[in-house]
């Protein structure tokens, strides 16, 4: 079974530029999560999708971050404009159904460096 795919794996941009990350969850997984992991900290949830609807985006900085999952399968996370403090690893995870009891399967992450 293929795992969660993410691209690109690495990205370097200058502040105020835009960047987009892509995630393809495990086939059939209804729930998709985007996390931000700053060096030395645990992952912080940015947004949770159930199919193509948003379940929780309370920690998403909506002035600069946006995410979509239009067809309920793959998803994109965008940052516009980027700030230095956005340097982090962006992790995508998916579960078969919704909720914390389900095992979350994580992708390898996209490492973003903002200069």
């Amino acid at each position, binding site marked *: 079974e293929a795992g*969660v795919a993410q691209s690109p794996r690495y990205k370097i941009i200058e502040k105020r530029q835009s960047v987009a990350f892509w995630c393809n969850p495990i086939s059939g997984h209804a729930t998709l*999560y985007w*996390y931000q992991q700053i060096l*030395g*900290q*645990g*992952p*912080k*949830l940015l947004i*949770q999708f159930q199919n193509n609807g948003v*379940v*929780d985006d309370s920690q998403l900085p909506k002035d600069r971050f946006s995410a979509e999952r239009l067809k309920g399968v793959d998803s994109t996370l965008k940052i516009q404009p980027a700030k230095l403090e956005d340097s982090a690893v962006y*992790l995508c*995870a998916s579960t078969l159904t*919704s*909720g*914390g*009891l*389900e*095992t*979350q*399967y*994580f*992708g*390898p*992450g996209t*490492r973003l460096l903002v200069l």
Partner: protein
Amino acid sequence: LAKTTQPISMDSYEGQEVNITCSHNNIATNDYITWYQQFPSQGPRFIIQGYKTKVTNEVASLFIPADRKSSTLSLPRVSLSDTAVYYCLVGNSGYALNFGKGTSLLVTP
């Protein structure tokens, strides 16, 4: 969401048993306890989950006392490849898991 507290770091020698304890005093009745492992440059990976008493799988054991205010992840006979960050999470269906800073385990020869 219940707040969890676990040691920042632990050291162990190869072949020893490692026990990582997590405190979760505000755990709710319908919350489960889940542990994840994360290696550098990888996403977290599920290790074990439990509600009460003891759960064991091929990788680890999870001990949960009757009051459920803490839990202990037990890794038998660790090897160098067990060097990783271990996260204790508390939650239930319908809520995304809340990762803290985790415990950084270093296993040395």
